[in-house]
């Protein structure tokens, strides 16, 4: 256990060095701020072009917060799997990590932890920008901290676990890892109610939405972070605008817990299978210049 914690800490430090030492701190900070803000401003302009002004509307807050939270989905899923690709193909250090007397899981999770930390800075800056500049409907006094923290931790854990499974697939693919990750993250973006309520989707797509853990995660975190906005959307003309109003907070948390448990079992099975297959086929130190 102590050894695993040490591996986790050192992997996180290594991840930080790799993420941040490519430039001076000012440029890194600019990079970390500009990218998420620009991505969010696309939606802001889309909204303003159609609606005019009025960024204090409930739908704007719904869309804005969802887009900010999605950074976790994209970065964590992509970050975990990219560790394997980058260490193997670019830095060619994966084989050294393999033969070191450490837990590979602890190493991957350490690298993922720093991704989450860096992404958290981007998410917080984006939310702060929304509250201060765009009148996004987050009232600190109204936040349901228990629901927010509980769903955030469960959801991030679930994403890391899914990332681990995708990382296993990366062992066996030279050229498809990035496409698979971006594809899965993209499916979550369209079908999980990230920037629009799932109620606008065709009914067959809504059925898929309701089996994706990210849908429940988005809903739970939003209810914790902006309960006023979610209540306004749910009671709008008596119509279930979000498509999720019928689920209680407890149900959302239970679904997240169940999703995390199922993902854990599946991801470990996929990872172990991929690990053994990669060793057997000599793919641990595979370099293909991709």
């Amino acid at each position: 256990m102590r050894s695993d914690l040490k591996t986790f800490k050192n992997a996180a430090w290594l991840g930080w060095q790799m993420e941040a030492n490519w430039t001076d701190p000012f440029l890194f900070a600019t990079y970390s701020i500009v990218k998420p803000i620009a991505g969010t401003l696309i939606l802001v302009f889309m909204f303003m072009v159609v609606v005019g002004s009025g960024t204090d509307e409930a739908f704007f807050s719904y869309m804005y917060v969802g887009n900010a939270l999605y950074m976790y989905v994209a970065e964590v899923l992509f970050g975990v799997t990219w560790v394997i690709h980058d260490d193997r193909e670019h830095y060619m250090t994966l084989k050294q990590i393999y033969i070191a007397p450490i837990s590979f899981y602890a190493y991957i999770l350490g690298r993922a932890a720093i991704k989450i930390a860096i992404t958290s800075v981007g998410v917080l800056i984006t939310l702060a920008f929304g509250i201060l500049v765009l009148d996004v409907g987050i009232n600190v006094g109204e936040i349901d901290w228990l629901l927010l923290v509980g769903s955030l931790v469960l959801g991030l854990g679930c994403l890391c676990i899914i990332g681990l499974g995708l990382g296993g697939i990366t062992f066996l693919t030279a050229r498809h890892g990035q496409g698979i990750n971006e594809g899965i993250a993209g499916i979550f973006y369209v079908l999980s109610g990230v920037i629009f309520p799932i109620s606008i989707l065709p009914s067959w797509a809504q059925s898929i939405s309701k089996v994706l853990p990210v849908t429940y995660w988005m809903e739970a975190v939003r209810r914790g972070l902006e309960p006023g906005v979610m209540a306004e959307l749910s009671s709008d003309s008596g119509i279930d605008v979000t498509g999720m109003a019928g689920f209680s907070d407890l149900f959302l948390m239970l679904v997240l817990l169940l999703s995390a448990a199922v993902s854990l079992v599946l991801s470990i099975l996929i990872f172990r299978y991929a690990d053994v297959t990669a060793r057997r086929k000599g793919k641990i130190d595979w370099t293909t210049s991709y």
Partner: protein
Amino acid sequence: MTDSWLVRNLRAIRGRAYPRIIGSKREPSWLFFDIVLPLLTVSAYAYVYKFMTARPEFVGYVVLGGAMTAFWLNILWAMASQLYWEKEIGNLQLYLMAPISRMSILAGMAVGGLFFTTIRAGSTLAIGVLVFGITLNLADPLMLVVVFIATMISLYGMGMMFASLYLLFGREAYHMSNLMTEPVYLASGFYFPVKYLGPWAAAGASFIPITLGLDAIRQLFYPAATQDAFLPVTTELAILSVLCVVFMILAKYSLAFMENLGKSTGRLTLRWQ
């Protein structure tokens, strides 16, 4: 008898374009991802417009913008970053030793990249039009072809210039490409008409050729939606023509500058820096 300078350079263009064209056939899964991934973002933004009950042409704008993202991503990852990757895998010195113009290598990359990216962008557009039932009303196809060609020449000229500059960035190249993705999607109005950024911001973004190219293409497909146009198509075409020349000249000078700098500092073959 040795080949003339022209023949050697034409061969270099063909030789560098070849792996890009033939490579697109050898990895069909990339074709799938390159077409489907932009469609996911396009779908999400299209549903946002639908939810807000926006005018129908906005969904068309998103599909057109989503198709054009393929070209911008190709510029960032397969033009701008390319000489850096070539250095990382040890090909750059071979290019510099060959008795050809460096511009031919970049031109070959551009031709090959343009070929397969056009296929991907066209497929994204076709599928997007079918899925969302968009009606495009093209009144002047010849103008569309001219605008598209001018946009691509100036855009790939910009990519050729970036290729040299990226060599100076070293490891920062990856981050630079990441940094120039969403901000350019925003500034160039990939998902909404650039006019709504305001005249000064839109004018500033016009240095990126795809800004004016996309605005002109949208006007040609939606001639009735004049309220969304930034500048008249003919003006945009004239500016794009100037950008074609400017970026080609800048590309040539930045390439020579980079090569001299790399030689004098001994970093042309240095990896992982």
